[in-house]
């Protein structure tokens, strides 16, 4: 079983002035295979730092991180990442973006192109293989980014506000797509988001983080992702339990922000 285990993670940055910033403090959790986790929190609470640590772009200054028993030591194919702006390679076509990972591995060409077709179909981009990525809309670019990550068959998919830059309508469609992929592939997915609704909808589990120093504040276990597989997400959003949880979390984050502002002005 490839579970993600975080054990008392500490992360301290040193600014150029020599000040120390405590970005994460004593963060511990275990993410079982196949779980869908969303992370929420006010800005500056260390969400992205946590994700970068798991992706291996940063090293924790304390504590241990492991995936499937192996300590995380630098970026790896088993932890795929989807960025906010897609971070597509605009000099390549859609298909070339999608098979980038396989080409770097020098995988079999025929097998690669079969997989590309398959994944383009899953994300709903069949026939766009030869299109340059800069001609795609934002939602389509994000689909390419998803396919590019998934084709490598990672154990864990990390998403850093993947739908943040999309319009509301596209966003809803993409949320369904993420849920569909989660259901069909059974991947472990960790999503960082600003939107409370999105976090509720795309989280089997939900972490609310608190700032200064960044830490896990509260954890929820939610049923909405399961519902979302069968129901229209808009109906779920009107559900009583959904709205209650949403208000509770919003108040929680609002208070945190107030507290920060108070600290800052004091």
């Amino acid at each position: 079983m490839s579970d993600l285990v975080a054990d008392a993670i500490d992360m301290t940055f040193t600014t150029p002035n020599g000040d120390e910033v405590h970005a994460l403090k004593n963060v511990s959790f275990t993410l079982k295979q196949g779980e869908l986790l969303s992370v929420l929190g006010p800005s500056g609470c260390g969400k992205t730092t946590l994700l970068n640590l798991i992706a291996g772009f940063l090293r924790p200054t304390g504590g241990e991180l492991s995936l499937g028993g192996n300590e995380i030591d630098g970026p790896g194919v088993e932890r795929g990442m989807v960025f906010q702006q897609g971070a597509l390679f605009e000099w390549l076509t859609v298909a070339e973006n999608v098979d980038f990972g396989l080409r770097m591995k020098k995988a079999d060409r025929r097998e690669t192109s079969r997989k590309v077709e398959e994944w383009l179909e899953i994300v709903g981009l069949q026939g766009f293989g030869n299109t340059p990525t800069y001609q795609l809309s934002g939602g389509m670019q994000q689909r390419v980014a998803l396919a590019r990550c998934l084709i490598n068959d990672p154990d864990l998919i990390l998403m850093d506000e993947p739908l943040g830059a999309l319009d509301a309508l596209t966003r809803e469609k993409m949320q369904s797509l993420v849920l569909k992929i989660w259901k069909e592939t059974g991947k472990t997915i960790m999503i960082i988001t600003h939107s409370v609704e999105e976090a509720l909808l795309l989280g089997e589990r939900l972490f609310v983080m608190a700032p200064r120093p960044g830490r896990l504040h509260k954890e929820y276990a939610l049923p909405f992702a399961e519902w979302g597989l069968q129901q229209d997400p808009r109906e779920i959003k009107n559900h009583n339990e959904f709205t209650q949880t949403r208000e509770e979390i919003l108040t929680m984050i609002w208070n945190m922000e107030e507290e920060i502002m108070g600290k800052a002005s004091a």
Partner: protein
Amino acid sequence: MTAEGIRGLFIGALFIGLLLTLASCWWYGRRLIRTEKTDAVFGNPVKALGGWHWIVSGVSTIILVWLYFSWDAARAFFPDAASEMCQVAKVETAINPMRSVFPFESRLLKGTSILDRESRQINNLETQINTGAFTDQDREQLLPYIERVRQILASQTAPESLEESVVADIQSIGQRIDEQSAFLQAGVLPEGADAAIIEARDQQPGWGGSSQEIPIEPISQRGAMFAAVAAPLAAISSDFGKIRNAGPAFLADIKALDDEVKQVAGAAESAAVKDFARNMNKLLKRIDNGVVFPPGALEPIESALARLDVVKSDKQGSLKLIDAIAMPSGTIMAGNTACSEQGSGRWLPKPSDTVATFLRLSDPDVGYKGIPLLWYKEKPLAEMVGFLVPDFIADLVPGKYPRHSDDGTIPNNLKTTVLNFATGNFASPSVPVPTGHVWDSIMRVLAGLFLGILLGVPLGLFMGLSRFAKGFFDPLIELYRPVPPLAWAPLILTIFGINDDGKIFLLFMVAFAIMVISARTGATGTQLSKIHAAHSLGASRWQIVRSVILPNSLPEILTGIRISIGVCWGTLVAAEMLAGTTGIGFVENVARKSSDYEIIWVTIILLGLLGLLFDLFMRFIIHKTIPWRGKG
């Protein structure tokens, strides 16, 4: 019809067409303004402005077109005019030394102005004597000399001082000028002139038909008349120059005075007195030229010249009008071997002459200094093999080079065979290879640019990625880059010699710095998320550099190449002007030395067109390679 005739016809038609167009511009502009005036309430101010716009632009264009095309238009309509004006210019050159003595173009008679100048000099000397530098004794001694030199100067202007022989000479010169005037007036050509005209027409190139602007021999009746009087008038001029109003008594007076002053100065201790003597000596040497005559003494010559002027002007006729209209920027002057247009606007490109010069230079058999502008020559393949294969590979072959044997033959072995191959010493078919000034310039730029890209881009990327490389190489590059490339040129050309390698190295330096900076900017500008994405997709460091950072830096690199080409092109031309035996810059520089405006214009236009071509090519490449730019 000759090529020059067709050229003339074409230019003439173009000229008339342009004049008509511009006249209608003016007419249209006037009409628009009138509309505005009669319709003051509802008039369209934009249209009215348009009217002034048409007049201003139209009239200024007329002036420009006139400046540019008048020369060609004159050639089209009056093909003999330039040759005739050349003959008139010969006459003017001949009589100018005489005319300059009289107040035709100047304000004063030459004798008057000389007298004035020398009187002032004498007054200056007198003032000096009255300063404190001289003792009273000196003054007493020197002041009489001042009086004497005044008298000597004045004695020249007395009519009775003029010698009989000089009076006779003056009379004779006046008569000889009148003879030439009468000859010109009669208009009957001397024996054999017709044959000479026909021969000149056949033998010498036409107006603008060669690099000689206007060939010197007359090709028409009118021209031949002027040519016929030019030579005798030159002789008269020369005789006139020998006439001196300096008889033996006058010269003796001067000599006596000079000797006395020298004696005084020799005996004197004072520096001021010696100085006075020196100045007096200079003054006397000028006066003894004898160029001042009694006021009316030269009248016979003056009136003869005036009469010649009337006849000349009468015989010139339409030539004066052509000169004024068709040569607005200058006039035709006679030289020893050819006539040419001279004047403040001489540098303006004459369109058809520039085209003709370009066509002449384009002929591979003519070219410039024996080298065509752009052509090809057959080169054996062996030469290229010899250039590309290093000679030392022969040294690596085992064995020894053969020595000659007793009977004087040289045996061959494997080593000699390889050496022959490496030096290109073997029979091979030939292939055509481009050659010429233009090709040389282009190749130098491309070679320098290629080396600059080859070394600059990897280094720039490296500097963009590694802090060590940035810290290490940045100061080195910044040491040489701020120096203008042309400041390096003399040093580099001295080290490498005037051949291609020096210029290529100079261009390499230029391109290298630009490429390093652009590649570095491109590399540092790569979004971190892209590198992270590639990383988590399993790319190694080298793969990230090749597949992410390099393509991501392409816009900057290509812009760098585009800038490099432009800067290299400019630097190359200047370097070629400094040293070298081929290249467009070389051509321009040599043409500059002989003031050959047409060739200079041809090179300017060629350089501009090639620069534009390079830029268009780069724009095309940029458009094709980085279509995503600005669309992310």
